[in-house]
């Protein structure tokens, strides 16, 4: 009986802990403002921006930092939720943001199709919706800030082909099939490949789901299958490019096969610096987040009415300019 009382107390303590955890969360994020005043917010207090992102990757973390700092500058509150890669959970979070009466919702979609119900929900609630980083799969116009992934795909393929002298065999490591980044980067790859018909052959293209480990295994297998034939490996992100580089290092082929990537993450920049990665495409994550918040603000202020896609500049990073990144955003 005593033990049972003990365990009961434990649960009560946990519930209390939960409540305390909750309130401290509010304090942190609302900057000391209590939850009660949030609902009765007037325009002078700034807006509340609700946001749900697909998953806290390194990239998204940088993007969120960009959002937060712009929101602070504009005097807005940012409510940040993480859908944990679950499309159904993201719909749930949009419902919760609407119930919370935020002024605007920014979504980095888990899935370009599965986010469509959110558009209708926001319409009905009269809350503007801004897409960031992941396109929505719809023909209707919508507000969006994101990378120009077609250009990214073109840049990485063009540079790889230039490096191998305009002739040879390439393999492509794709992102998860059906994600807008994969579709568009592949489109960019193919735009370039079309110019080299007959000269460049694509030996294989498969997804490694953005994953370093999966790419490592895949490239190991490809090196067996196409022994001595591969001239370049074009990866849709740096993680997969780094997996490919590991496979090449193990096989002692680093000098013979060119690797390109997208994202210019820290590890990718280090690899560029080492010379194992030819180059990568940089999209400014913080600027992307910051621009999305700015767009949300402009929509609320009424200074922006037309729904359109805004693209972030993409920049080709090589050994020559990689230090610009390593000494700024990636500086210790």
């Amino acid at each position, binding site marked *: 009986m005593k*033990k*049972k009382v003990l*365990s*009961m107390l*434990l*649960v*009560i303590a*946990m*519930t209390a*802990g*939960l*409540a305390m*955890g*909750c*309130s401290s*969360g*509010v304090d942190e*994020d*609302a900057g000391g403002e209590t*939850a*009660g005043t*949030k*609902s009765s917010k007037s325009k002078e207090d700034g807006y509340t921006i609700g946001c749900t992102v697909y998953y*806290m990757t390194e990239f998204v973390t940088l993007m969120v930092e960009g959002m937060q700092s712009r929101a602070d500058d504009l005097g807005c509150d940012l*409510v*940040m*939720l*993480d*859908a*944990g*890669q*679950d*499309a*159904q959970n993201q*719909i*749930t*979070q949009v*419902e*919760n*943001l*609407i*119930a*919370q*009466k935020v002024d605007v919702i920014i979504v980095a979609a888990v*899935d*370009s*199709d*599965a986010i*469509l*119900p959110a558009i*209708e*929900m926001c319409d009905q609630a009269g809350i503007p919706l801004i897409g960031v980083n992941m396109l929505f*799969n719809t023909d209707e116009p919508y507000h969006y800030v994101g990378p120009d992934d077609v250009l990214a795909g073109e840049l990485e393929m063009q540079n790889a082909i230039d490096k191998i002298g305009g002739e040879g065999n390439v393999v492509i490591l794709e992102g*998860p*099939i*059906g994600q807008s980044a994969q579709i568009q980067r592949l489109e960019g790859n193919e735009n370039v490949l079309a110019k080299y018909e007959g000269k460049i052959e694509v030996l294989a293209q498969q*997804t490694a789901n953005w994953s370093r480990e999966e790419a490592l295994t895949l490239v190991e297998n490809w090196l067996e299958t196409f022994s001595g034939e591969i001239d370049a490996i074009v990866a849709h992100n740096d993680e997969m490019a780094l997996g490919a580089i590991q496979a090449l290092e193990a096989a002692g082929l680093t000098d013979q096969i060119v690797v390109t990537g997208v994202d210019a993450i820290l590890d990718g920049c280090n690899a560029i610096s080492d010379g194992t990665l030819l180059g990568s495409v940089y999209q400014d994550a913080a600027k992307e987040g910051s621009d999305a918040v700015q767009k949300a603000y402009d929509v609320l202020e009424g200074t922006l009415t037309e729904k359109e896609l805004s693209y972030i500049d993409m920049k080709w990073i090589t050994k020559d300019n990689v230090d610009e990144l390593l000494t700024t955003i990636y500086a210790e």
Partner: protein
Amino acid sequence: MSEKKKGIDKKWIQTYMLIFIVIGLVVVMAVVSPNFLTTTNLLNVVRQIAINGILAIGMTVVCLTGGIDLSVGSIVAFSGIVTAGLLRDSGLPMIVVVLIAVVVGALMGLYNGYFVAYWNAAPFVVTLSMMTIGRGMTYVYCDGRPISNLPTNFLAIGKGSIAGIPVPTIILIIVFLLASVMLTKLKFGRYIYAVGGNDNAAMVSGINVKRIKMMVYVLSGTACGIAAIILTARVSAGLPTAGSGYELDAIAATVIGGTSLSGGRGRLWGTIVGAILLGIVNNGLDLLNVSSFYQQIVKGLIILGAILIDSKRNQ
């Protein structure tokens, strides 16, 4: 006599403890978040718990026999992708597609049940195998791409309401009522408890233990098929990644609800209250802008609390 009375008292405390915790949580939430106790939000919560609630009902039935079903997330994904594929391409009437989805789920459950019951294989391993087979079949079926552009009347299953109550919630209530009747009023339901309590004794008393053990997985698979329909309608697409990790939420609701993983003991309404508890926690932490990293920790602690109560109860 007094012993017996004490036993009843204990039960009462245990029964109400879970409800007290839920009420306590509602009160706390209502105080700290002005948006929690609104009609819209409460309707959100009951809509949001429907999928996990239905899966947890199936899981509870399996756990009552001492089994476990790790494949629910994958069965949801495959049933869901089949639903989306048929809706888009086959031209079959919606009701037929929905029935096929449920049957697909049941058949995948049959695989689990057959090997658990007739090959005496460990449920953990058999359903683990279905978990990866089901996920693989899903990717094969859709070639890794989401299936979208589903008919709008189908989407109403996810977002529609009847008399103000969200359709997913209505489906949950129906599944709950059917399962309750089965467990408490039908012979089959009493056999499930008997098998979980002591399967040798059950066998000696003439119960077809193997059949019961097989059928509970079929029921769990059926629940997955139903949940898959709701999920597909809710996100308006069949997704190969759908449902991953859902087995954990279903097990969590079951355990919080007081069902013993060693079988023979548990109540269905407890599972529903468990699902509600988890739903309120998710919703509440979202409303309060708590990062999902912390949400996972909180969920873990709640499960630990529930299992501690459970293990004390067993002593």
